[in-house]
């Protein structure tokens, strides 16, 4: 009965050699994986590596982690004690999920983003940022490192709570899709908040602004935590029906589009803020703005075509209103840029005629910034007008009247944005002749101008007897855009003074545009310059021209 094989020896020895071979294969595979992991770790972002090491040694992180674990235990034991034997048949999963969600949402919406902010702020307070900025790390690597570090923390907190969340799936009242959507939203929300916190850290460099930003950030994060809890409660209880609605997913897609484009904008803004002064800080930001606008218009167009009818007007109104405010706000920042173009930027300017025609408005500078804002808004208004005038009158015959009101709204709104941005830019130019004016100062100057133009006539009207003026929308208060535009949104018929208002506002806008045109044209005339000799020399040394390989044996000779 011996299991001996005359050729290979005993069965035991065969199985032993199989086992050895399997173990060897396993060990070799593990070594391969380990080497790959080492390679990944070696190439990982230095800030991510450093901050992960720091976090693992920091008391704050360890105590937060332990507190979360303790809170999870308390919630589990307390919850089960309260629910009691009903846990086997009652729909208690929702309540338990909400309790765990509160434990998870607190670090994800408050601690992680605030730590990301503090991480950058501390670098600036303790002068390590200067040391970091003169290394070979690019600004985007610095932002990636800080963001990556926030994500690692987020994942650790998530891994601490996830067993408890998985436990709720064993109870009644919760379905996996609800949990997945809830967690996805929370993680994305936390990432977005961390990005905004990093932007806040990049923007606030001096002590007093850091204190202000710090307080503001804590308030916003606390409010977001409350909002997340309220939304989660609604979603968990109504999730089953909500998840089966098509509109929910479409709305989610729309929100995600807004989220990703805003994330990209915040990312490019933070990177720009950390860049060296001679770098091109503006062009990536303008691309991000343009893409965000395109996405927004795409969604609005999809909404209008899907709904049709009266919603087209609402969409045009909403698009004009939102993008008017958007380009005004972006314009206040873009017109605050320095008109001087560094040689470094001039090396990368578009060179061909077509390139100059298409991309010159992306060049940094206050003039091109003004042009960029005005051109984008003009495109939006033009598209809106085309849509409005292409709508056929309905049987009820009220469309043409309402279209007229909407058209006036778009045109007058355009005029206000062009005029206020242009005036603000002229004021910035004048102020900068006498004193240094930073970007934040330019933004404030624009706001003060808008407030004065809106508030002074209103104050004058309130001081004088009201009978001397007509009601709101008077031509005497034409400098107030809010008051002037309000009648066009609340009534289907355009006010009687609409043509006069339009002429006045458009005239002012065109005059301001012409006043700005000279300096804008000066900025548009920049041409690409050649690389310095030393740079060419180094590039040639780093990337020597490829010598083509011989294609036949005679080429060797």
């Amino acid at each position, binding site marked *: 009965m011996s299991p001996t094989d005359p050729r290979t020896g005993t069965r035991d020895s065969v199985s032993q050699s199989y086992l050895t071979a399997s173990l060897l294969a396993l060990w070799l595979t593990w070594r391969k994986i380990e080497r790959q992991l080492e390679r990944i770790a070696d190439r990982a972002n230095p*800030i991510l590596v*450093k901050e992960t090491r720091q976090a693992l040694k920091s008391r704050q992180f360890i105590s937060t982690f332990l507190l979360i674990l303790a809170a999870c235990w308390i919630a589990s034991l307390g919850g089960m004690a309260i629910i009691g034997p009903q846990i086997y048949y009652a729909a208690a999963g929702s309540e338990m999920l909400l309790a765990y969600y509160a434990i998870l949402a607190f670090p994800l919406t408050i601690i992680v983003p605030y730590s990301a902010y503090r991480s950058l702020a501390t670098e600036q307070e303790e002068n390590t940022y*200067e040391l970091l900025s003169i290394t070979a790390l690019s600004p985007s690597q610095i932002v990636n490192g800080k963001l990556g570090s926030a994500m690692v923390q987020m994942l650790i907190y998530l891994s601490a709570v996830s067993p408890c969340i998985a436990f709720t799936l064993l109870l009644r009242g919760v379905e996996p899709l609800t949990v997945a959507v809830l967690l996805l939203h929370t993680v994305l929300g936390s990432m977005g908040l961390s990005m905004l916190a990093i932007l806040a850290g990049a923007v606030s460099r001096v002590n007093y602004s850091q204190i202000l930003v710090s307080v503001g950030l804590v308030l916003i994060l606390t409010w977001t935590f409350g909002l997340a809890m309220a939304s989660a409660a609604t979603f968990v209880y109504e999730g089953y029906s909500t998840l089966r609605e098509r509109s929910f997913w479409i709305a989610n897609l729309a929100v995600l589009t807004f989220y990703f484009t805003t994330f990209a904008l915040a990312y490019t803004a933070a990177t720009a803020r950390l860049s060296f002064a001679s770098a091109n800080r503006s062009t990536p930001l303008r691309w991000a703005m343009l893409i965000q606008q395109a996405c927004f218009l795409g969604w609005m167009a999809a909404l209008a075509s899907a709904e049709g009818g009266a919603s087209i007007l609402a969409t045009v109104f909403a698009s004009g209103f939102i993008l008017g405010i958007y380009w005004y706000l972006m314009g206040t920042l873009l017109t605050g840029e320095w008109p001087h173009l560094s040689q470094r930027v001039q090396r990368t300017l578009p060179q061909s005629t077509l390139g100059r025609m298409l991309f010159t408005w992306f060049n940094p500078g206050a003039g091109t910034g003004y042009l960029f804002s005005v051109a984008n808004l003009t495109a939006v208004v033009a598209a809106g007008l085309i849509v409005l005038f292409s709508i056929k009158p309905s049987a009820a015959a009220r469309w043409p009247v309402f279209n007229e009101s909407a058209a006036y709204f778009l045109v007058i709104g355009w005029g206000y944005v062009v005029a206020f941005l242009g005036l603000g830019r002229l004021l910035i130019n004048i102020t900068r002749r006498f004193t240094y004016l930073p970007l934040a100062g330019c933004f404030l100057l624009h706001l003060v101008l808008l407030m004065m133009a809106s508030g002074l006539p209103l104050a004058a009207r309130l001081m004088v007897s009201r009978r001397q003026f007509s009601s709101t929308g008077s031509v005497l208060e034409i400098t107030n855009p809010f008051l002037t535009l309000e009648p066009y949104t609340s009534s289907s018929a355009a006010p009687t003074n609409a043509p006069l208002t339009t002429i006045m506002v458009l005239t002012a806008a065109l005059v301001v545009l012409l006043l700005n045109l000279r300096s804008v044209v000066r900025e548009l005339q920049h041409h690409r310059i050649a690389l310095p000799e*030393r740079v060419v020399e180094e590039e040639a040394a780093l990337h020597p021209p490829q010598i083509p390989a011989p294609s036949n044996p005679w080429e060797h000779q």
Partner: protein
Amino acid sequence: MIQPRRPLIELRQLRRYFGETRAVDDVSFEVHSGEVFGYIGPNGAGKTTSMRILATLDEPTSGDALVDGFSVVEDPDRVRTRLGFMPDYFGTYRNVNVRDYLDFFARSYGLHGRRRLRAIDYVMRFTLLDQLADKPIDGLSKGMKGRLCLGRTMIHDPAVMVLDEPAAGLDPRARIELREMIAQLAANGKAILISSHILTELAEICNKIAILEKGRLLTVGSIAEISAQAEIVCQVHLSLLTGTDRLQRWLENCDGVRDVSVVDTHFSLTHEGGPNEQALLLRQIVEAGFEVVEFSSKTKSLEDIFLHVTEGRVQ
């Protein structure tokens, strides 16, 4: 890649104004490979400002600074890979040990794999920190932190090192060690720009010095050259074999000589003029038939030169 003829540091009419204050005003000089260049001046003279511009931490109002031919304004990325800057603060992180700190900066300068590990080991040995590899930075003494910062500055083997007050607050032993390290780095071909208030130490390691005051460059050159420019009046000592009385009378009639005192055969006098004039005086004495056995003049120290050149004004 680095051409020996090209200066590794070049300041071209560098200016940096903060409102009305001219922190750096028309400063130009060059530092070549293997040179240790001392940057001297009273507080507020503009040393740190110009060093920060070189390190791409600040921008000049006008003019330019070049590192290995690259402008710090237009090509800061290329400058950063070639330059190590040690500021007058430590800039350390919490919960980080010595090795991790150097590892972080090695990674940040783009060193990977074995190259990074070798660089860290070399720097720790060079700065004598290898015994403290696992010690948290917070627990290091000031001298050790200074060494660590020097290690961080040289981790990517830069061709140019800019050291702002590296010896401040160090004990004598640490200063001597730092001086030796700097000399060794210069011997390895690095161009080193160093500022310090400890002038005696600078005098020992610097090939060239520049003296700044109120943002303006007062003088630049080797210590001997500047000393020669500065020594308008100096003490001369001479001894004779014989003829003491005759020489005393001869000296009293000599132009540029005053305060002659005699003790035995040893003379002490004040002479107006630099080394050239002293050589002429010696020749005249010998030609007059006096048997000179000793002729010496007290060379001015860097501190004397500094006090002579600067006026002690601040802005």
